[in-house]
């Protein structure tokens, strides 16, 4: 079975920690990272969050860098384009293609670095949250933030059935593969279409069955949430405040520092 983010979150030691603390750390990281003018602060945040995820949350480093590589690759390409097409100032590097000048300016390069740093820091903050807090815990956070009940209930059921349908889809896909359903482009398309159709029908049937099974247990529009009191420990407060202070100090002292 393929491991997904939620599976790591469920087994993470940080799962036991207070949800609000984790959300605060994530929100703080994102806000400070985005509002920083210098690429240094976001890089520090990204570093801290990555260490927290790998060390405290016990996520395998290989897996972590793999999932980080996807947005990182994307933002690298964007950074190159930004470097060439934006900003002003003296030229660092340039060349002509068909008598058209392509050049990287100091302003463009700084902008590219900043975008890169901000994106990576934002992503690492989000990964910190999603690899330490499973969906189950987030539902009670949603409840506490006074989201409408029906919204939360529907999302809880959706969450549950994503996995049921994923399993069904994987089963069907396997059954198609062993009968050469994906041998070339044309058959792949046909098979995918069939997979989609049967999943749709399954979802419909599942809905009917779910309705019966909920009714059999006297459903009257209330689902309970898993709420557990998790007091924040002193050591956690100390560590978090230390992190906040360091980041803020870096933020203040590097506010005008650019890489080049």
């Amino acid at each position, binding site marked *: 079975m393929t491991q997904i983010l*939620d*599976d790591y979150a*469920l087994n993470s030691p940080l799962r036991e920690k207070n949800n609000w603390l984790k959300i605060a750390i994530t929100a703080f990281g994102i806000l400070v990272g985005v509002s920083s003018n210098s690429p240094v602060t976001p890089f520090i945040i990204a570093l801290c969050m990555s260490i927290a995820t790998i060390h405290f949350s016990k996520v395998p480093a290989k897996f972590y860098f793999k999932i980080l590589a996807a947005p990182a690759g994307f933002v690298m390409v964007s950074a190159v384009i930004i470097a060439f097409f934006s900003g002003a100032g003296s030229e660092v590097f340039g060349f002509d293609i068909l008598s058209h000048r392509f050049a990287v300016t100091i302003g463009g390069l700084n902008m590219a670095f900043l975008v890169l740093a901000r994106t990576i820091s934002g992503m690492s903050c989000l990964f910190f949250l999603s690899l330490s807090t*499973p*969906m*189950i815990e987030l*539902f009670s956070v949603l409840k506490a933030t006074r989201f409408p009940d029906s919204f939360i209930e529907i999302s*809880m*059921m959706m*969450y*549950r*059935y994503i*996995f*049921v349908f994923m*399993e069904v889809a994987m089963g069907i896909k396997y059954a198609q593969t062993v009968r050469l359903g994906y041998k070339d482009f044309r058959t792949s398309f046909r098979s995918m279409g069939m997979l989609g159709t049967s999943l749709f029908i399954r979802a419909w049937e*599942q809905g009917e*069955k*779910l309705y*019966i*099974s*909920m*009714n*059999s*247990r*006297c*459903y*009257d529009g*209330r*689902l*309970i*949430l*898993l709420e557990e009191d998790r007091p924040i420990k002193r050591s956690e407060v100390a560590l978090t405040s230390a992190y906040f202070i360091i980041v803020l100090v870096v933020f203040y002292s590097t506010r005008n520092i650019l890489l080049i």
Partner: protein
Amino acid sequence: MTILETRDLVYSYPDGTIALDNVSVRIDLGKKIAFVGRNGSGKSTLFLTLNGTLVPKKGEVLFHGEPVKYDAKSLRELRKNVGIVFQNSDDQLFAPSIYQDVAFGPTNLGYSKEKINSVVQSTLDYVGLNPLKRKPPHHLSGGQKKRVAIAGIVAMEPEVIILDEPLSNLDPVGADEVMDLLNELNYFGKTIIISTHDVDLAYRWADYVFIMTNHQMIGEGIPEDIFRNEELLQKAYLRKPQILEVHEELRRRSLVKANGCPKDIPGLVRILKEPELMWVKVSPDVKVGDSVNLGLLHGEFALTYPMEAVNGRVLHIHEDCMAIVELSRHYVRAGSIMIYDTDHHDAGFLELFIAHGDVDTVGAMGKRSKLIAERDNIHLDITSGVIDRSILNALCGQRCLIITHGGMIYHAFERITQYIEESGINIHVDIINENGDISTLATACTGQVSCVQSSEEHSV
């Protein structure tokens, strides 16, 4: 005391297909009930009428002697007391975590938060899943999911728990755990109803059994009666429980004491016959452990068969060459197995052969051959486990006919010859119409028939 009852229940699906046809059942309080029938016989539909999910077209459902009403309040009361565990756990477990799923029922019953918590905790402890309570259902094994599904129902403290195919897709250990749980619940006074097509399970577990086929109730009773009724089982497309078949074969070989009906292996062991001992005079050179041939016995000395070969194993030698021997009896006449190939089917010949060929049992193997037999009105004694049961019958001196076709002929032939080689007991086996060679056989057969007729004339 009857807790649940249905009277002449009729239900048909919106498209008109009949799902329940005049079904009347009475379920007694505190019993373990099994509804047995092959897939699609109407068990699940019946269950959904028992908790008011489906409203019958005709007839009524009674809970504690009161007809069920279908207004919201009565339904709530009924569903609180009649819990259903569905066949596929994924249909039932919809909450993102196990705790939430088990808490679902109690929440809907309007319990206070503290009460919900204590009920859920104790139920999870009871099914042994407390350590997993914060996991999502997709992280559990099939057996664990099933136990969560049961816990979700138990948490509502119903009087009756209905389980649709509780052991489907479970591994043996998971299945045992689920059955232990059900037995325990029953011990604490819950009425447990299951549906199954596993005759072995129904036979060994249930107090009372209902047999369903084609949306009708065709039999009910205690398992010992129901599962010995071969006609009923055949009508319901079921087979005998394995342990009863073993018992049957042991009884035919007089290896077990007179009538008993073992439910499990200890029960079977208990009724095994002790060795038959006898004083015999032996020659002086016989030693302990030797085998002595006591010859052929017939008449009143042969216990089971017309003619028995009796051997004795010497256990102890007394003075004067008197010895205690343990007797073992073997019937002398082995029967035969004839295989008929329906690829070269000739209805007239087959009918003639069955009528005059001294055939004791007829079995059919493969859907095509069974259909042919059905079409030509050939009564089938055996429809499942045909080869093995034919061998067993032949060993008891019967002449068995197997109607089959294609590759199964050679499979049957090989299986039987393999048995002959392994056991050293010769059973005559023959393919009676090989390669469409009916003409010669037919003449041979008619010759035999005419011979039979002439002998009849003679006797007249």
